[in-house]
Structures are given as structure tokens and as C-alpha cells.
């Protein structure tokens, strides 16, 4: 199981270490640094590294490497999932998962790590249980604590830890029960260069993140089983559920029946594959070319919405990694603003909202390093966008039933379609 954990920042300093069994010397991280050096780019460090006596399994999140040390055969996915959970917990507790946040709260971090893992076995990873055990830091609380001498560690047994529904505290009663659902769908696609016609369309996942969120407001929560009816559940190719969902009912009736956890949570993730013909909501016209034997090139990109949408495409941002030979870019945007970072060679164009009457366009000259050969590779365009009030897959929440209460729980459903890994090849 997990032996030790090292947190390493981008400049290669180990700023935190935690051992759950015997102490492993920091020098084991040298193998990691070696791999990091070889990978050049931080993102390319292989997640599993073998050393003569240990295995290092690492993740890279928010500019921090979480490097765990393993000594016996263990499922690497388990370790990786756990490390992400650790990062999520830090995010949850400190509002951000950064080196400063961790250093500022080093004792809480230590207490959390101790609570999350025992002898390498996960102990308490649910956020509600952890929060009962160790109170998250707030300015107010630290002031109060220092006056009254009370601590920020709970001294009662967290009730959820023992129940069969660990995601929920027992015996919570709320005066009013309300549920809000967010259906967030993400489109993953690679669009081929053949004349903007979608050639390689991959709906790796139309959706990715929080689909249904139950109420944010602290008093309005459920303690009763809920039943959520979807309009066209057969659309979904694959689903993964929060443990609270009763799988049997889904299998037999395609109904989501569950006792919701407190607070925000991801109820279900699903994937709709490209077999179900789902329209791509935007198109991109592009002309990027570099002239042979001259140190310049042309750049011309137009983004437009597809017809029959009825909804506005907003929050459009395009990022392009330009070839290394590009020195700078001299462009004019009909809408929004663009920046080009000559060091990283990243062009960012913040478009904003697209109005079909006047399509946003970015056009101009690319200046290349003089004497450098014409770049071979064509840059891919990475596009982000957001469409409110639309679930592109056609999925709808039809009805929400609650057992044991007469009144209808308020049903608020918000649909958002976003771009996931949306790439246009040129």
C-alpha cells in the first residue's frame, strides 16, 4: 500500500513529506527528478517510475507533484485516484491547492493526511467526514480558537464513518428540502482539417463534470430518498455513479434513485459516443500558412455558430500553440482581444460571445525567425466555449419525486454545454 508521500514544487523542492510506515529517505525522489529532467516538460513526467527498491507513482496537479512511494504490488490506479482525492481535499479545505496554501496550513495538512490513510490503507476520504474530524480553517475560527482555547479538531465520532451511507451524516433534518441540478455536458472532439467538415468526430465524452448538483444552501438539504426521472436515458453509452445511486433501479427502470449526500456532489457522469449523432455547435474557418523562403506567414481564423441552435455561444476562447520558429504575430481581431506570448509561443484569443450577424475573425501576419526553415507542423486550435440552457446530447431531467413528503421539492435544473478537449486541426 502507500508508503510515503512527497509534495514537490515545480522548481524541484520537496516541501512536504509524510510517511505512513517506516521513514523513506528523501533521496528516493532523486529518481523522480531524473525522470523529470528527462521529460523536459513537466506534464510529460511518466506517472509510474520504478527504482531499485520502490515504485514512485505521481500525479501533477496545480503545479505540484504528488509523489507517492510504493513498496509492494498495489493497483496504481488506486494510488492515483487517492492522490487526486488528496488534492481535491486540499482544494476543498483551503480554497486552492497550492504550495502557499499547503505551507500556510501545514499542520492541518498533516492531520488530514493522517486521517485519510492508515498504514497505507484509505481511512476517511469523504469530505463530510473529514470536515467533522478536522474543521477547515477560517479566519473567524482561528480568532475564536485563540480566544477560547477550543481546537479545530472534532472530538465526536464522525457518524457517517460507520453508516452504510458514508457520504451522509445520520439524523440530519432540514426544514425544507430543495434540489438543484446542474447538467453540464462537455464535448470532446477532434475536427479534421478537411475543410472544416467534421471528419474525425470523437465524442469521447459529451459530458464530464458535475451533472446533478444538489443544493448549495446549507439548510435546504435532503434526508429522504429521491427519484430522478430522465427523459431519454437510453442515450447514455456509459455511466458512472456516485455510490449513493441504487444500481438495481437504474438497471431495471432507468431511474436514478438515491439518498443525496450533503452539499454539492457529482451524482452521475455519463458518456454519449459519436454513434449518436450529436451536432457540433461551432465551426471554425481557418487559413494558416507559412511561405517558403520568407520569414512570414498568414493567419486567418473565423469562428461561427452552427445553425438551428437558438442559443448563444459564449465564453469563447481560442488558444493555439504556434510553431517554435514564430517570433511574433501581428493580428487584428474584429472582436475580443488577443495576446501572444513569444516565450511559450501561445496565442490566446478571448472572443467572448458570438453573434451570428457578425462573425468574429482574427487575421494578420505571422513573423518567423529569419533564416529558419518553414515550420512543418500545423498548429491545432484549442477552443473553449459555453452554451447556457442547452444539453447538447438531448438529455433532460423530467421529474423529481420524493418519498415520504407531500410537497414537491423545488426542482431547478440548469443545463450547460461546454467544450471539453475540443481541437481543430489545421
Amino acid at each position: 500500500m502507500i508508503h510515503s508521500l512527497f509534495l514537490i514544487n515545480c522548481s524541484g523542492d520537496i516541501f512536504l513529506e509524510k510517511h505512513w510506515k517506516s521513514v523513506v529517505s528523501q533521496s528516493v525522489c532523486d529518481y523522480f527528478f531524473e525522470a523529470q529532467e528527462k521529460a523536459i516538460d513537466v506534464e510529460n513526467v511518466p506517472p509510474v517510475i520504478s527504482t531499485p527498491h520502490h515504485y514512485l507513482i505521481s500525479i501533477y496537479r496545480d503545479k505540484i507533484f504528488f509523489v507517492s512511494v510504493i513498496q509492494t504490488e498495489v493497483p496504481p490506479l488506486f494510488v492515483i485516484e487517492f492522490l487526486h482525492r488528496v488534492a481535491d481535499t486540499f482544494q476543498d479545505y483551503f480554497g486552492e491547492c497550492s504550495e502557499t496554501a499547503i505551507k500556510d496550513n501545514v499542520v492541518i495538512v498533516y492531520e488530514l493526511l493522517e486521517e485519510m490513510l492508515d498504514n497505507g490503507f484509505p481511512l476517511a476520504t469523504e469530505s463530510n467526514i473529514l470536515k467533522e474530524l478536522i474543521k477547515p480553517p477560517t479566519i473567524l475560527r482561528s480568532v475564536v480558537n485563540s480566544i477560547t482555547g477550543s481546537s479545530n479538531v472534532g472530538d465526536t465520532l464522525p457518524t457517517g464513518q460507520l453508516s452504510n451511507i458514508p457520504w451522509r451524516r445520520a439524523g440530519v433534518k432540514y426544514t425544507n428540502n430543495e434540489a438543484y441540478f446542474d447538467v453540464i455536458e462537455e464535448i470532446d472532439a477532434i475536427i479534421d482539417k478537411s475543410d472544416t467538415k467534421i471528419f474525425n468526430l470523437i465524442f469521447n465524452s459529451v459530458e464530464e463534470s458535475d451533472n446533478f448538483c444538489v443544493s448549495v444552501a446549507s439548510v435546504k438539504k435532503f434526508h429522504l430518498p429521491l427519484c430522478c426521472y430522465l427523459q431519454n436515458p437510453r442515450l447514455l453509452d456509459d455511466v458512472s455513479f456516485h455510490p449513493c445511486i441504487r444500481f438495481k433501479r437504474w438497471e431495471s427502470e432507468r431511474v436514478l434513485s438515491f439518498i443525496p449526500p450533503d452539499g454539492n456532489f457529482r451524482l452521475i457522469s455519463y458518456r454519449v459516443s459519436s454513434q449518436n449523432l450529436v451536432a457540433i455547435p461551432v465551426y471554425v474557418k481557418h487559413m494558416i500558412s507559412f511561405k517558403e523562403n520568407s520569414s512570414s506567414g498568414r493567419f486567418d481564423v473565423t469562428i461561427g455558430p452552427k445553425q438551428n441552435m437558438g442559443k448563444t455561444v459564449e465564453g469563447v476562447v481560442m488558444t493555439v500553440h504556434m510553431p517554435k520558429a514564430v517570433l511574433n504575430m501581428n493580428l487584428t481581431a474584429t472582436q475580443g482581444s488577443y495576446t501572444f506570448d513569444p516565450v511559450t509561443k501561445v496565442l490566446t484569443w478571448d472572443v467572448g460571445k458570438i453573434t451570428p450577424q457578425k462573425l468574429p475573425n482574427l487575421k494578420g501576419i505571422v513573423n518567423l525567425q529569419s533564416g529558419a526553415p518553414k515550420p512543418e507542423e500545423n498548429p491545432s486550435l484549442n477552443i473553449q466555449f459555453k452554451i447556457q440552457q442547452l444539453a447538447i446530447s438531448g438529455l433532460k431531467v423530467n421529474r423529481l419525486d420524493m418519498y415520504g413528503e407531500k410537497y414537491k421539492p423545488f426542482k431547478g435544473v440548469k443545463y450547460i454545454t461546454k467544450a471539453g478537449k475540443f481541437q481543430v486541426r489545421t
Partner: protein
Amino acid sequence: MTDSKYFTTTKKGEIFELKAELNSDKKEKKKEAVKKVIASMTVGKDVSALFPDVVNCMQTDNLELKKLVYLYLMNYAKSQPDMAIMAVNTFVKDCEDPNPLIRALAVRTMGCIRVDKITEYLCEPLRKCLKDEDPYVRKTAAVCVAKLHDINAQLVEDQGFLDTLKDLISDSNPMVVANAVAALSEIAESHPSSNLLDLNPQSINKLLTALNECTEWGQIFILDCLANYMPKDDREAQSICERVTPRLSHANSAVVLSAVKVLMKFMEMLSKDLDYYGTLLKKLAPPLVTLLSAEPELQYVALRNINLIVQKRPEILKHEMKVFFVKYNDPIYVKLEKLDIMIRLASQANIAQVLAELKEYATEVDVDFVRKAVRAIGRCAIKVEQSAERCVSTLLDLIQTKVNYVVQEAIVVIKDIFRKYPNKYESVIATLCENLDSLDEPEARAAMIWIVGEYAERIDNADELLESFLEGFHDESTQVQLQLLTAIVKLFLKKPTETQELVQQVLSLATQDSDNPDLRDRGYIYWRLLSTDPVAAKEVVLAEKPLISEETDLIEPTLLDELICYIGTLASVYHKPPSAFVEGSRGVVHKSLPPRTGSSESTESPDAAPSAVQAAEQPAVIPTQGDLLGDLLNLDLGPPVSGPPIATSSVQMGAVDLLGGGLDSLLRSDVGGSPAMGGSAGFAPAPSTAMPANLGAPLGSGLGDLFDLTGGVGTLSGSYVAPKTVWLPAMKAKGLEISGTFSRQVGSISMDLVLTNKALQVMSDFAIQFNRNSFGLAPAAPLQVHAPLAPNQSVEISLPLNTVGSVMKMDPLNNLQVAVKNNIDVFYFSTLYPLHILFVEDGKMERQMFLATWKDIPNENEAQFQIKDCSLNTDAVSSKLQGSNIFTIAKRNVEGQDMLYQSLKLTNGIWVLAELRIQPGNPSFTVCQLSLKCRAPEVSQYIYQAYETILKN
């Protein structure tokens, strides 16, 4: 107010200040001080000097303070064991606390203190906690048993904690069950022989019930445990599968993959006609695809596993090609894995799409990725015949880009395509020749030279081209030199009139001016061939080449089956069985897939050995790399594809090496007598009978197999030890004479040496080193010569060996190059070790397994030998062989002949199966017929030698 303030005091008297604060009367100040101590500890500062002061703070009602002190204790108790005892009383008291949280905390912390004295006090509280009324405490205590076992295994067994732990599997609380399973699994891993996790249908039922209710982590432990269970029939397997399937929809990817493992394993038992089988196949695809939308690290592990799944059951993902398409901002490790899977899934139906993608990748920025993409195009051409033409034109397009590394890579793969489809695409040669000047990498140059040599008759200026390479002959790498030599010889055989001068030039360059023995040897061989019998030379050099294999990097079926049992583990990421790399797990019981039961129960049915079916479905493959004949036909090029990154380098070296040497043994019969060879003079010529043209078995995997090392656990055995022979004569080593032999006793190999000083001066400072060799033999201890060796004295040394050294394929396979150093000089010699020192003690195969494996290994891998003049009867043969770890599994009498079926295993895990036919009769004329089957057929002849040695001595 943040914790960073705890780091600010870096003045001189920091420890002193903290000490004062810790002893303060004020509670608040104490707590702050402990926090400061912890903060220093987290960054690796040594605050152990404060131990007594911190421990004094332990007796408190404040839970936070208590936890902090516990944290400190866990970290430093080891360095201050005597002080740690002071804490024991508080621990024991806390274990009785009415609050279950405190009880659990106390027992948990106590288990983390790795001090013997404390563990003694732990037993009683632990026993109570294991039976605590509160499941939270029981669950914590279960893990504590695992901790204690890690510190003192004997104590845990003596105290009967293991039985209590086993009882907890039937606990009413699912979380307790999950932790008990986790703890038992961890303990079982260090005790492979123990039957801690012997599951029966009842306990399986308990686990399956707990599976639905416990946490995600618990589900992983339970699923991994279930995967070790062997259902008694297909019905039970199906019912387990049905109950595991819902886990495929879990949000935690580790749960999903563990569930996939259980399903993949138990599926083996289901009949393919069953409706349920088809349903299950369909259910497996979506979750695997979903894994690919997770974080890159998760994707990587998932992809490595999908790679295995695709090889085992390609039907699962055959329609999902698109999800493996590469995004430009994927990390490189994800890109390379995706590419590999794309090629595995490539078929006639989707090849157009795949090629378009690959072409796209070939214009990316990342050089490594581009190279791999170009290679992938070549692999597609070889795999899907219908696509070959399209692949070739794609490659030509890429060559037109004139991007240097793309062109070079394309030329290397086109060479492979030529080999696969001879006389089909030669029209492109002209285009290739245009790029001759831009080639600067040895592999590409060698490929180009091979093409020119091979098609010399169609290239008008072949002689000019080759001549231009010849100018810088000495600056080329060996690979190119060898290739150039052969190409020119080919050219000469095809156009003898114009090229006589050229061939003489290259032969003299190779034989006279080169330091490289391989090159010299090959030069001499060609020279003699050409001078003695040009017709024979033509037959040898221009002979028909074996076709290139379709998939060179398929994992060997038995290894694949084993790896399927390890889906989701590190083994699956490295594509090696855990015994090959996980420390401390030597002698792990190899897992195997369950045999199919149900409709077809008889062992005769093809379904009985699932892997046999698998093997039969694959087209007969002929290796591309390392086959000896191929070498003579001059393919020195490295393997066309690279397998998993870890093994590649050694495999490549091995292949090249094999090529170099293989030539010698093959040619020995042609040339008569061994040609003058620097290092290899004086070898007993290897019998050259067994050199089938098709060495069978994809060598890529065979080599991989050869190279993963496992150690056998020794039982008592004393195998035959040959008498000592002189290895290094005194005249060659400034007076040091070394003679020796190899022996294997009780599972350990040793090299017994006699060092004799025949010089006039005293010798001292002995040291020994082995060159890399086929089985990774390496000295396990330094050479111990205690006193200096006086003139005319000799000393006998037994040098223990192990098989964990670096591996490089040697030729002959059992060749060992040794360097011995003393105060005078360093000397080199090489020797051949008998293979039977590598036969491990656990080489006895199960009867069923033997049958299945025998069928599974293709017939091409069978080698037949005769052992003459063996004057022993059957039983004596059997017992004699047993002494050297060749185990007789069955004995039969057919038509008056005795048949012995035997198995043996080499230290690197290669199994060799043997059928020994003994004709009784006049004992002095007994002839034994030996048939050997092995997945790595190149070992066969050495096994035969071992047999002969053992039986005749």
C-alpha cells in the same frame, strides 16, 4: 493567521525556545509549541531532541493536542525507543476510553510505533479492539494487525491474530470486512505459501454482499481478493460476474479496473456460446472507454491495461478505434500508448482512418512521437495486407516533406515492407535513393544499404552508391559496416564482373583494418565462401528470406494469461509478471487463468486450454528479429518496433548480438572448423543440427521471456558437477591459471574456482566481474581471496552466483565472459556453463498444465535429439535427472518403449517440456530419443547438451 508562522523561528536557540514553551503551564502555549514542532518535522528538520517534552504533553483531554503528540510519536519513537515506553501507559488507558474514536486512535497510533518493546504491550489492547462492539474500532484494529505483522510476524501468528482477522471476513459491517480483506491480502503477499485467503463459496458470498455496501477503497480490496478465487464451475463464475458487473459503473476508476480484472478472469470459464458471454463482452467496452476521459495519469495506467485486454480479447474494443486518437496536448506517455493500441486495433475495416491519423501525427512537433507514428504506418502495412499500398504511398508523401528524421524513419520501415511483400513495391526505390545523402542515423543508413544490396540488379548505379558509403567505412557504426559488407558481397554475386575491386576493398577493410571481431569474422567467412565455392556462396547469401512477422511485439500467450490475472496492478503497467520485479515476492505463486468448464469438460477439447486456441488463431509467425537465417541474409537492423519501453534496449542489444554470433555457428558446418576468432577460439563447437529455418514463436516475446528474471526457491538438490577444466591458461594471464566448474546446490549456483599462481611474484587484490550474459549470471559476492597468493600456490574458491545481473543474449547462449583482476593486470576469458545449473527446484509442472502447454507450443518449436550410449534403465534415468531438477511428470510404456514426460524450468522462468523415449534392450546400445518443446526454442540445444552431460556422467 496561518501555519507559516511556525517556520519563522530559525534562530540559533530554536530547540531551546520550543523546549521552554512545551513545558509551559499554559495549555494554549503548549499546543502552539507542539504545532511548531510538527511543522519542523514535516519539512524534515530533526526535532527528536524534544522527545520527552512532547511526550509529557500527551496526557491531555484536548483531542487535537493528543493527535499532534501521536503524530510526533509515530515519527520519532524509533529513534528514542526507551523514551517511547513512557507513552505506553497512556496508550493502554486510551484503549479503554468510552469514546470509540479515542480507542481507535490509540490502537491505530500504537501500531505505527515500530518499536519492539511497545509492540509487546500492544497485544492485549489489540485483542480487545478486534472484538470491540464498535465497528469503527474493529475496522481500525484489523489494519493494526497488518501493521504488527510487518513489525513482528511471529508475534502475530503466536497470538492467533490471523484467525481473528479471518473471522472478521464474516463481520456484519461491510467496512470491517473490507479492511480485514485488505489486511489479510497484505499479510498474504509476504507469505505466498500461506493459505490465509482460502475462499470458499460462503465467504465469497459474504464478500459479494459487503462489496455493494463498503467504501470505494474497500471495493478495490474485495475485488482484488475475489480475482484470486477459482470458481468451481461455470455457473458459479457467471453468478459472481453478474454481481460484480455493477461495479463497472463506479466513479472510481480503480474500482472499475479491478472489476474488469475479475470479469476478464472469470470469463475464461464461461462457454462462448452462452448469451451471457456476449452480454458481458458488450458491457466491458464502455467503462474502458470512459477511463480514457480521466486525468492523464489514470489514462496511462488504463491504456497499459487496455493494451493487454486488446491482445487477449480484441473483440471488446474493435469498434472503439476513435477514442484512441491522439490529442495534440496529451502527455507523451499517453500518446505513445494510444499509438500502440491503435495499431493493435487496426484492421481492414478501419485502416483508412488509422492511416489518415498517423499521417497527421507525422507532422507533429514531438520528434519521438513522430518517429513512432512513422513506424506505426509500417506496422500497419505489415499487419493489414490490403493497406500496404496505401501505407507505402503515405510513406512516400512523408519522404517528400524532406524532414530529416521523418525520411530516415520512413526508410527504415519501407525496408520492412519490402521484406514482407517482396517484389511488389520496388518502384519506390528511386525515390529512396534521392534521399541517400540526408541519412545520418545508423539505422536508416543500414536500411538503405540493405535495400541497395538486396535490389542491386535493379539499381543501375548500385556500385557507385555503395562505393560512396565505403569511403567513410571506419567512421560508420558497426551496424552500418556489417550491412555494407554484406550488401557489397550481394552486389558482387549479382554483378560479378564490375564489382570485383569493390568487394576486395570491403573485405580487406573488414578483415584487416577493423578491431571489431564480428565484422572481421563475417569478412573472413565471406572471403572464404567466395574463394572456395562461389555457387555455395550464392546459395547462402542470396537465399530465400523468411517472411517478416505480422506482430513482433505480441506478449507471449502464457505470459499474457498471467498478466490478465494482474490487471490493474503494477505488473500490468510493466507487462511483466510480479515475480520478475517486485521486491520480496520471489517465489510468488503464479496466477493462471481458470480453465474453461461446462459444456466441454474433457481435456481433449480445444477449449480446455484457452491459450492453445489463442495460439492457433494466430497465423504462424516467423520472427523478424534475431533469427539466425535472417542474419545470414544480413538483417542486422534492430527490431522494427519497440515494445514496452523498459525492456527494449536489452532486447535490441540481444538481438543484434545474437545476429553477430549466430552466423558463426551456422557457418561452422559450411566452412569446416571454426574460423579464427579472437575471443571465441577454443569453444567446443555447438552441434549445428538444430537450426530450423523457422525458429518459431515471435521472438520478440520469446526474448522478453528470456530476459525477465525470476529466482527459484531452493529445495535440497545436488546436481551433477562437471570436473574442473582450465579456463585461463597461465601463459595467457601472466602466470595466473584459473580452472573451474559450475555447480548448483540447494538452489544456489556457484562457480568453483582454483586460482594457481605460476608466476614468480605474489598475487593479491583479486576481483572478478562478468560480462552481461544470457541469463543474467552475476557474482553474488565479491571474490574472496584472503591472503596474497604466493608463487606456486593455489587456492580454491567457491564463488556464489545469482541470476539478477544484466542480461544480454550471448552466442552460444551459455557463453560467459569473465574478467579477473589482480595486482598485475586484468585478464579476460570466456567459458561455457552447463545449462543445468539454471534448472530451478520448482520446475515440476502439473500434469494438466503439462498437457495444455505441450499442445500450446507450436510444433515448429519442437527439437529432436538423440542421446547415444546411455547405459541406464528408465528409473535410473528418471532419478538421475531429478537430481538435476529435471522432473518426470508421467511415464508411459508404448510398444515396448518407455516414454518419460518431463519438465524443467530455467531461472528466468522459461519452461522446457521434454519427452524422452528410451529403448530398452541391450544396455550398452541404448539410444534415447529426446524431444524438447519450449517457447524459446533457442535454448533447446543447450538443454540437450545438459541432458547428455547428466546422463553420461
